[in-house]
């Protein structure tokens, strides 16, 4: 297994280089280093000299990908792409274009993202699987029919509606929890109730339907019929047999997102005033801070790759037939 993991890590390197290259190309197609300088220096009274100085200080005065002026390796290494990308591979994110330490910002902000994403993930998973099993149990009855109708309805509603509607209903009309905001430690609890609730509810439609499909497919298999024929109760059939055998497709979708929980939610964090990494990324895009965008995309890619490796490992835990060969 260790050799498999090492092999996967080596496979990740060209993927990360590719991701970096694509991010770099996309960013600089839209923004020139001059644009970045203007975004940081402001709108009023910005002189070409100030822009030139800003670029030089941060190394944005160099060519993007190929330095025709430099000799030898310098043609590749003395470029913006090389200088800004290499350090990422040792997780040295450097400083943002505003001058702040990106690693410090990530370390402080990821906890806020996690404070929402983890409960939404865990409570959501429990709720979705429970609802899906319930619907599978009551398949072909009014519970299943209206459950599917409700799921389709809930899937059809925009996530933004859940947020705004939830804030208005729970925070404004019922006055039960704050509409938005954040605090640290135990004081964060009252701010987390609403976003977690909305996060779970907004995912019920799509996720319950997805899991229901998996469970129904499993229920129709021969071993289930055999289990029933043995006289096992439906509960036992569902939880001991169907759930266990449905774990591979469930894990495929679930384990891969676990590392990404750190990255936060772009929209929810903005609406609830949560100072997480989602809003950090959005702010960086809005302010054309390439250093932060690049770091966050890189981090997201790394976490996604970790998620995929964890998924593979988890297969061996739930299905003895899977081997790393």
């Amino acid at each position, binding site marked *: 297994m260790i050799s498999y993991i090492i092999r996967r890590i080596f496979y990740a390197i060209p993927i990360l280089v590719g991701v970096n290259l694509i991010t770099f190309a996309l960013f600089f197609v839209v923004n020139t280093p001059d644009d970045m300088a203007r975004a940081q220096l*402001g709108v009023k009274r910005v002189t070409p000299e100030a822009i030139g100085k800003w670029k030089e*200080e941060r190394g944005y005065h160099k060519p993007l990908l190929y330095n025709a002026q430099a000799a030898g390796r310098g043609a590749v290494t003395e470029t913006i792409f090389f200088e800004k990308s290499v350090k990422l591979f040792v997780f040295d994110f450097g400083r943002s274009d505003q001058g702040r330490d990106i690693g410090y*910002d990530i370390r402080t*902000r990821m906890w806020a993202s996690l404070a929402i994403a983890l409960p939404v993930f865990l409570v959501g998973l429990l709720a979705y699987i429970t609802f899906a099993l319930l619907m599978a149990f009551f398949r072909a009855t009014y*519970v299943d029919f209206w459950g599917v109708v409700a799921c389709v309805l809930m899937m059809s509603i925009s996530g933004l509606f859940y947020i705004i509607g939830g804030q208005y209903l729970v925070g404004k009309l019922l006055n039960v929890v704050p*509409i938005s905001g954040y605090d640290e430690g135990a004081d964060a609890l009252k701010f987390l109730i609403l976003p977690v609730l909305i996060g779970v509810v907004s995912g019920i439609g799509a996720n319950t339907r997805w899991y229901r499909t998996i469970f129904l497919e499993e229920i129709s298999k021969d071993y289930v019929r055999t289990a029933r024929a043995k006289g096992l109760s439906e509960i036992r059939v569902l939880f001991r047999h169907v759930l266990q055998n449905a774990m591979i497709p469930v894990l495929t979708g679930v384990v891969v997102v676990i590392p990404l929980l750190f990255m936060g939610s772009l929209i929810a964090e903005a*609406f609830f*005033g949560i*100072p997480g990494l989602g809003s950090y990324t959005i702010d960086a895009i809005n302010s*054309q801070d390439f250093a932060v965008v690049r770091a966050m995309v890189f981090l997201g890619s790394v976490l996604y790759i970790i998620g995929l490796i964890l998924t593979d490992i988890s297969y061996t835990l739930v299905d003895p037939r899977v081997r790393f060969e």
Partner: protein
Amino acid sequence: MRFLSPLAGRRPGRGASDHTIPRVVVFGMASFLHRAALVAAALVAGCSGAPWNNPHPVSQSGGNILYSSFSERPKHLDPVQSYSSNEYAFIGNIYQPPLQYHYFKRPYELIPYSATEVPRAQFYDASGRRLPDTAHARDVAYSDYVIHIRPGILYQPHPALATDEQGRHAYHDLQPGDLDGIHAIGDFRRTGTRELVAADYVHQLKRLAHPRLHSPIMQLMGEYIVGLKELARELAESAKTLPRGGFLDLTRHEVSGVQVLDRHTYRIRVRGKYPQFVYWLAMPFFSPVPPEADRFYAQPGMAEKNITLDWFPVGTGPYMLTVNNPNRQMVLERNPNYRGETYPGEGEPGDAEAGLLRDAGKSLPFIDKIVYSLEKEQIPYWNKFLQGYYDASGISSDTFDQAVQFTGQGDVTLSDDMKKQGITLLTSVSATVFYLGFNMLDPDVGGSTERGRKLRHAISIAIDQEEFISIFRNGRGIPSQGPIPPGIFGYREGREGINPYVYEWADGAPRRKSIEQAKALLAEAGYPNGRDAKTGQPLLLNLDTTATGPDAKARLDWYAKQFQKLGVQLAIRATDWNRFQDKVRKGNVQMYFLGWHADYPDPENFLFLLHGPQSKVRTSGENASNYENAEFDRLFEQMKNMYNSPERQRIIDRMVEILRHDAPWVWSFFPKDYTLHHAWVHNRKPNEMANNGLKYQRVDPALRDRMRREWNQPVLWPLAVLAAVLAVSLVPAVLTFRRRERQTAKA
């Protein structure tokens, strides 16, 4: 603690358990959920009687605190770099430049802040001979501004000024490991203070030239302040000899035009005559910064922890930044060392009647703490304002109808709901101008020919600004007749203030000329019915804009309709801000939208936007229309060196007339700002220039707490009903489950 759940009086009695199983399930679950909700809420509220939805800590109840918000984190808090209103909202209350604007008087009036008086320029000719105050600009080689600082002003407590038992700076020689466990400025154990001295102002002036700080006004001030350009070159050379990020000690360098005369007096020498210079003395760029702060923050390890002057200011103003977590919250607290300033006793007519002068003579500031919370979206902010958790709010388009209504006479008044909550509406015309600019280098719409001028006038008449303001700004704006907004010297009201090329005076008010007159002008320009008289081709004009999205589409469609009234086709070229700036800079636009907010209340700060030598294409200046008119440019040079006087007004009138005649802009509108505040907030008055108004404001925390409790009683019955409905809907499912479990296999 009170709970308003109707279920509280309707819980099932003991007999409930004797009923059938489903009823036990229903009422039992409802009761359980209800109790759980109560317990959870009690935990949240800490049994303090505070509303459950209060986003602020219960411990702050009754505190002399103002609650506000910010939507994006400030980029710079270093006064040498900061140049935007969202940054000034903080540092304007922390730093203390020599001058400030009178909070109440209009027109805006400069008064001393840390200075003992507003300095008067002393003029000298090239030989150093003192000239009279009335000297003509062409005779003046230098102007000296001698500024006396009030003795006894102290800095806020700060670790950069802390000393140890031996009187040495406690944190100026940090060793590796000393910063372990320190993540913010408040983590340093010791703080200290010292008296503000003139050298601190001189130090800040040197910082304008610092090669790594990129002050946006360096180039402008380099033209005026003697020796500043030379200092910039000298510092750039010195910086090259330092390791990357090494400390550049400004105390080892001098700027020849700025001298410390004594402990509390310094002099700034400015080239020529520049009356607007005093306005700059009221801006944070000219605030004092102690050299100790630069030395303190330059130590290794500080920047890595984001502990910089750009993040943690050191000021002498009424407030100090004690929490700077721009990801969540920023907190200003009263500077315990601030004293000596009292609430003004004078204002403009009506201020006393409005109760704004009741606190005259009392010591400032009134409020102990200002809590700014990050609020990126308008909807949560607005709802929290209505709940009483923010003390003041602007009005967005989304909430306009909810907040404001128009009377039969067209006056603006608060809606009944707002009145019921005791909310007050304040309105003011912003020192801002929005315009549609023509690129004067463009062969079709530009140029100084009669043809181009008539085309521009025709378009100016056709675009109905009154309709635009009514539809798209809910009436929040006044159509502009020229570049100078109301409240700024040079603005003319009434008949003499109208633009005669676009309006005529009728029934005591300006009336836009008819579309027929615009069509006639278009025909005279060579485009009868919007077609080129020579080729017969329809006239197609391009408008560059950064506006996108559904709201912008409605506005742009409206603009296209205005051009259609003339038979002219309008092509909208939507582009992002970067491309837009690039196109304007290269002159690759035909028409464009822009606006300008004044730095200071002087007509020069608006008229320079059309000054020929500041053409965007030629000099990267702020004249985005690349307008040039020899007479206008000559008058501008003359006007900018004058103090306000009838003579200056006469020159401005002539300049405005030239602009109206040449029409390089479609004079669009001056926006009106609408702000709301709750009944517990006092002494608020819109001031477009002052950025230190917090110290005058006062809150009534007891009233706020009472109103919050009244407005935010938790409503629990819908939750109980929901729980009951869910429980009831589960009953048949449970029955089905049991039936299935008991039934035998089917044949």
